[in-house]
């Protein structure tokens, strides 16, 4: 009886693992194809065995994708795009998180008249699709003479991220008892010193969540980069598209796959480094710990 019970448990376990492995393989299949293709020389690809491992693995495709692939007349690969993406990313991430945190802190810990209504308005802001305000934004930037510049793309990223960042931080700061702020007020601290000395040091988890969200979101952005960054500040995603989508000539699958993998690596690194904190931070607000 007991024995049979145990056997059934083991069978259930095996079934579960089989399913998980199958699901894992299913999701990883495209990545596998990309990886093996990017490592194959062009002749091997032409043979058509998509799933086969490379006979003579080579990193030539990566080197070409990085440094010498052509987009039109420009044959510098996607490396300039990598630099552009970094230059766009750093100020966009830092500013959106910092401003979001300050906003959320003001909304949650300083119960000024109308704070709740303002928070509601910001919530609405989260749900306004980017596409709706795109044309007005272009018009505004063109009017002030900044369309297609680093300033415009960073501004756009910060502005569009702000409602969600503000809400994320507001919900976190709302879970901090307001006696803490009151104690700090009695101790002689003001709005900014409470924020920087007491609130920010308590926010490491939510800061990491914001960092991961903003990093991936801004790095992976294509549309905003295409419209607002202009010719000089094309981010990596836009450059990747220009390499991959060639209208004529041979399609160089290995170079395309290598370029795509290179573009996808930075967010992956961020996920791997912060995965543990990310999960913890997402649930931190719920359990008040």
């Amino acid at each position, binding site marked *: 009886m007991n024995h049979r019970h145990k056997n059934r448990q083991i069978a259930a376990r095996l079934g579960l693992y089989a399913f998980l492995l199958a699901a894992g393989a299913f999701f990883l299949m495209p990545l596998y194809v990309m990886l093996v293709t990017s490592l194959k020389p062009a002749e091997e690809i032409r043979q058509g065995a998509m799933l086969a491992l490379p006979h003579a693995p080579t990193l030539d495709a990566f080197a070409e994708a990085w440094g010498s692939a052509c987009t039109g007349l420009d044959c510098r690969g996607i490396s300039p795009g990598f630099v552009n993406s970094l230059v766009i990313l750093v100020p966009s991430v830092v500013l959106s998180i910092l401003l979001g945190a300050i906003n959320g802190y003001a909304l949650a810990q300083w119960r000024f008249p109308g704070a709740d209504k303002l928070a509601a308005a910001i919530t609405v802001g989260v749900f306004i699709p980017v596409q709706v305000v795109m044309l007005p934004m272009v018009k505004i930037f063109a009017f002030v003479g900044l369309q297609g510049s680093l300033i415009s793309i960073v501004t756009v990223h910060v502005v569009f991220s702000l409602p969600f960042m503000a809400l994320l931080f507001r919900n976190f700061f709302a879970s901090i008892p307001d006696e803490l702020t*009151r104690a700090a007020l*009695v101790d002689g601290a003001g709005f900014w010193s409470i924020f920087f000395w007491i609130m920010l040091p308590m926010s490491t988890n939510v800061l990491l969540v914001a960092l991961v969200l903003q990093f991936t979101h801004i790095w992976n952005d294509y549309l905003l980069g295409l419209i607002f960054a202009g010719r000089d500040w094309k981010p990596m995603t836009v450059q990747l598209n220009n390499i991959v989508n060639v209208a004529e000539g041979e399609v160089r699958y290995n170079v395309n796959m290598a370029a795509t993998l290179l573009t996808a690596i930075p967010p992956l690194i961020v996920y791997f480094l912060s995965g543990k904190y990310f999960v913890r931070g997402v649930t931190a607000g719920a359990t008040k710990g």
Partner: protein
Amino acid sequence: MHAVTLRHIGKSFGSNTILNGLSLDIEAGDFTVLLGSSGCGKSTLLSLIAGLDDVSAGRIHFGDRDVTDLPPKDRDIAMVFQSYALYPTMSVRDNMSFGLRMTQVPKNEIAERIDWAAKLLRLEDHLDRKPGQLSGGQRQRVAIGRAIVRKAKVYLFDEPLSNLDAKLRAEMRLEIKRLHQALGATMIYVTHDQVEAMTMATKVALMRNGQIEQYGPPEDIYNHPQTRYVAEFVGSPAVNMLDAQLVEGPLGTLIALPGCDAPLAAPKNAAPQKVSLGIRPEHLHLKADTHTLLQRQAQVEVVEFTGADAVVWLHAPAGRLCIRVPSSDAPRTGERVDVFVDASAMAVFDAQDGQRL
């Protein structure tokens, strides 16, 4: 010169009036306890004194300085909160020095004051720990330490002991009292616990419905309650409250009480009316001595042994009575006893408005 002067303080939240024209003078060096049940406005009053909330009406003076419109940091106060409100990411040392750093106290003086407070509160070994690593009592001491290093004019305590267990609470009570005597500072302390109020205060302000019901030394509050509410709020076991009647007689106005045939003198100039008779358990006796007979043949219902004393609950003609007697004199359950009263210690209240006659 009073350390703190409150004049006609009003506070409303929307249409909800918490305080309505409250006035209070607090002497320098006093340990004043704001005592009252929850919702009486005592914590609100403390927030107003701290400047954490704005008054709706009235003025607050510290000494001769009008602080009504000043923010907390300009009032020269320090405060201990109910939840301790320690800064969780800072060490004990940084918690205590935060206020000093914010007000640009020189570094060597900060170190000096932290050492002094740590020694006084026995926190020397914990200075580099985070609040999360401390026990409840230690956190409480850090919160107090954070307040006393400020060397403020007025120290405010908002129910600081309510999160501690009974034993620790008794210890901390003593500690705060000692601290008050050592510092000689003006302290204002909010609690709903009458034992805390009675043991710690030099003055008690008993609050009810946003008003001060009675203000005075704890002995006065206990022995000379000015209203029926005050008499019933303090004392454990609670005061005996008996319904009686004042009647005009040939010997002047007397108190008529069911089951009592001895003449009990009414307060002077009292008109015949319904009254409540307040008698503390320790002012009732089972032996005559010099006392007046109050009730004959009361039946002993329950005897509670509390150590040196026993609390005896009686069923008497005038109602249920509670007596505190030495344990050795305690009667048996079911026995019938005569009850005598120390007539000078009785308090007579108007049955209608509860004011003392």
